[in-house]
């Protein structure tokens, strides 16, 4: 069978792992809620890359359809999450997560 690319799947998985870890570091270290939000998008994208990689190498569409659904859920999450950030800012005048301690005992 005709072959096209010489990049093995592991390289894509490694790229995805690096991007995911960068996203995790961002969520754990940043204080700005919007930047934490963007880091969550980074992690979602890293997982998408893994799914697309496996989908392509296995020749199965299911992975890419899953990515389609992940994107739709991410869009919904962005709408609701940013609305929550807006409501939070309106009430507390801050979006730094360490200053929001309503549920902290």
């Amino acid at each position: 069978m005709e072959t096209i690319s010489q990049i093995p799947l592991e390289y894509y998985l490694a790229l995805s792992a690096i991007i995911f870890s960068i996203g995790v570091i961002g969520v754990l270290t940043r204080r700005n809620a919007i930047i934490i939000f963007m880091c969550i998008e980074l992690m979602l994208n890293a997982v998408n890359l893994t799914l697309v990689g496996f989908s392509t190498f296995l020749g199965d569409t299911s992975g890419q359809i899953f990515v389609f659904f992940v994107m739709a859920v991410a869009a919904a999450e962005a709408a609701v999450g940013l609305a929550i950030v807006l409501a939070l800012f309106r009430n507390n005048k801050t979006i730094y997560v360490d200053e929001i301690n309503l549920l902290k005992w």
Partner: protein
Amino acid sequence: MELSSFLFYLLGALAIASAASTVMSRNPVASAMSLVLHFFMLAGVYLTLQAQFIAVLQVLVYAGAIMVLIIFVIMLLNLGDEEKLREKSSLRRSVGTGLGIALLTQLGLALLASNTDLTMLTAKSVEVGMVNAIGMDLFTNYLFAFEAITLLLLVAVMGALILARRPNSNEKIGSEA
């Protein structure tokens, strides 16, 4: 070096660099712009995987819709740089970075231990990335999930409207005051 490998390394390096810049830059707008660049680079990586439909969706949905929403909120809140506020705890920063690096090590070890044996793209791989194949599968096997996602988006839009609504003078949403 073959062009596709070169493109993968270039796009991958730029994707990692822009992701790091997203996490590290002080200004939220600069952060968001780095994220836009990251999404474009990732769309390029999808193209090296022959996933054309997903690459287009990546640019349209992520770099287009979601990032416009995020930048809109940043502008609306009119946030200043984070650098004016002194970083309160370097402890949290170092612990967070340490945990992230631990996770990366673990993922790397898992990757080294596995052998997927998948090194070649076949003619099937190209076919799979086309709108044709994805559409056929989406509207037959995954039709229920597709319809369910429309409902999810509707609920999300309504939820966003209710959450972001300006509260009445005698009522405050999300606070006990």
